[in-house]
Structure formats: structure tokens, C-alpha cells
């Protein structure tokens, strides 16, 4: 397709040039996607399972709860051990998505972040132990966010109040929803 200087400007040649470039690009992407897509899917599932395992280490299997999106029963040798809830709440930038581990008597085990766009080094401290440990063992009635440390309440991270609130409210709503669900199914 080497071009000469003379009839170089014909619309046909220019179009053909672009078309071939786009076609080649499409073919390359399709081939790569064909090979990477299954691996990426496996990785996604593995990462999800890993965060569930971290929440409830003693569980041997996770079965989805019917009628609830991304809710799971953590089972140990076939017996119900804990619930894993999916929580989503608007944060500082986009939604914060969490996996929340809950015991059978509806107290918090902890939470793991699935995806977020909070400020690195600032908002993302809400997913580190120092903040996250405050939630352990609490029910939704005790999930109240305060700026100055107070016994039995959640202390917000300095400079990341919005993220702290998003996490607290997201978990609170998930817990309330769980109680409603359990009462209904009784």
C-alpha cells in the first residue's frame, strides 16, 4: 500500500488507510480479549471469595441468598455461620462498595472494601484497621458517627468525614435491611 506522491489525495486512499488501521486494531483487541477474558473472570471471582474468606475465616462455603443481590450465607460444614452483605453508599467520589460480615445475632464482624474512588492516603484510611476495628461487635443501633471521640460510637477520620459517613451509613443500612429480611422470612 505504498503511496506515490501523485494521486495520493484521493478520498478512497485516505478512507482505505483509516479503515485498515481500525480493522487491524479491532482484530488485535479481539484476539487479546479472547485470551484474557476468562482469566480476568477467574481473578474477579477469586478476589471476591478472598475478601469473604477474610471476613469469615472459619467458613467452608458461601451460598448466595435468594432474592438479595450479592448477599451470601457463610456456612461451616453445611451449618450457617455468618452473613455476608453487600453494602453500597455514595462516598466522596462515586460509590463505596463493601462486603460486610455479620454474625447470626446481627453484630458486625467487620467489612472489606470491594471498590471505591476515595482520595488515596486520606479517604482510603476508612478501609484500614484503625478505623475499621471500631465497628467490631456493634449492632446498627450503635452505629453513630461522631467527630470527637466518644465511648461506644464511631469516631470519624480527620479530613475524611464524608468517607467515614458513607462507610458507617452503608453498613447501617445493610444491617437494617438484614433485620427486615430475617423478620420477613421467619
Amino acid at each position, binding site marked *: 500500500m505504498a503511496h506515490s506522491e501523485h494521486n495520493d*489525495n484521493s478520498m478512497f486512499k*485516505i478512507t482505505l*488507510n483509516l479503515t485498515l*488501521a481500525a480493522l487491524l486494531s479491532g482484530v488485535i483487541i479481539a484476539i487479546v480479549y479472547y485470551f484474557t477474558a476468562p482469566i480476568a473472570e477467574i481473578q474477579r471471582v477469586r478476589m471476591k471469595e478472598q475478601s469473604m474468606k477474610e471476613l469469615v475465616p472459619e467458613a467452608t462455603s458461601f451460598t448466595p441468598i435468594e432474592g438479595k443481590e450479592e448477599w451470601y450465607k457463610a456456612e461451616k460444614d453445611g451449618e450457617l455461620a455468618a452473613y455476608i452483605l453487600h453494602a453500597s453508599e455514595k462516598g466522596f467520589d462515586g460509590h463505596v462498595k463493601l462486603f460486610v460480615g455479620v454474625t447470626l445475632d446481627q453484630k458486625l464482624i467487620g467489612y472489606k472494601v470491594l471498590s471505591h474512588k476515595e482520595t488515596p492516603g486520606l479517604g482510603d484510611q476508612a478501609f484500614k484497621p484503625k478505623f475499621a476495628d471500631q465497628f467490631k461487635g456493634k449492632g446498627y443501633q450503635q452505629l453513630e458517627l461522631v467527630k470527637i471521640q466518644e465511648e461506644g460510637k464511631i469516631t470519624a477520620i480527620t479530613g475524611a468525614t464524608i468517607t467515614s459517613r458513607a462507610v458507617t451509613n452503608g453498613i447501617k443500612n445493610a444491617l437494617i435491611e438484614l433485620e427486615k429480611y430475617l423478620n420477613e422470612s421467619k
Partner: protein
Amino acid sequence: MNLWKEFTKGLIVENPIFRLALSLCPALAVTSNVYNALGMGLTVMFVITCNNISVSFFRNVIHPKVRVPVMVISIATIVTVAMLVLEAFLPVLFKELGIYLSLVVVFAIILARAEVFAAKNKVIPAMMDGLGMGAGFTIGMVTIGGIREVIGNGSFFGYQLLGGWYHPPLVVILAPGGFIVIGFIIGVLNLSEKRKKEKLERAAATAGGNV
């Protein structure tokens, strides 16, 4: 050798961030810690090198009137491939870099090197230019990221350096901190260059005075 020169010029003399002042957007956005800065730098290095090779390889076939669209298609293809590979093999990094990854397509430095260098040179020099520019970009990113992480978070590469007594200024982690840090680095580089020039001039002047 000449090839070596094509490589090293991107490191400091024509450093993309500090000297050419291109692609400052990612230099601000993803440098709040070293890990992200390094990941972004290496991704850009990969994309710029592949793109330089591809543009240089096809330079006699590409019609001059549509060269920019064709270059953009080439960049977009390489970025998409890089994203697919990262998603499959390094999902954690993929999650961290998030939306910035697709923005690599429009990084000025990549198109600039394709247009200025790769479209006019053979494949091997174009590759060296890409590697050098990519390495220079990575060095710039890591420098900014390192300074911001140490001052703004008291840590380096995730390891806590400064203890609990240190209350980091939040502004360094946020976007304004990026501007400030880049400004200071460019300032220091310009100052050192000025000093060097003055020294040369003074040396020339004294030499001249003897005549």
C-alpha cells in the same frame, strides 16, 4: 552510541514532565503514593514504546492526511491491550489505577513522541526514544509520588517511616500538593541549570579577560 543518546535524553535533559512539561495531568492525579506512580509510569513506558515501534514501522504506509487519527487508533489499541492484560494478571493494580488507565490514550507525551520522533525515524531508534521517554516519565512520577507520600502520609512505598508524632499536612496528598511539588521540582531544576550556565559564562569571561 547514538541509540544510547536517544534513550538518555528522555531521562533528564528532555524529561517529559519536568522539561517538556507534557502529561502533567497524570503527574498530578496518580502521584499521591509511590506504588500508583510507579504502576502508571511503567504502563506509560510500555504504551509509548509499543506505539513508537508501531508508528515507525508503518510510517511509510500511513497517509499524511490521516496520520493523527491513525496514531490515536494505534495508541488506543495498545492501551486497551495493556488494560486487558493488567485486569487479567494484576487485578489489584488495575483496580488502583482505575479510570486513569483509559486516559493514557490521550496523554500528550505519547502522541507527541509519535509525531515528533517515531514518524520520522527507523524502528530501533524510535523504540529507544520510547523507552527513554517512558523511563523519564516513570522517574518523574516516582519522584513526585515519593515526595508527596513521605510528606503527606509519612510513609514510603506503604512502609511507615515517620511515627505517630508526625501529623502530615493533608494538602500534599490532595491535588494542590501535586501542583506545589511539581512547581518546586521544576524550580530547582531551572535554578541548577541557571547556575551551570552562569558558571560557564564566568569561565568564558575570565578566559576572555586574559587576552
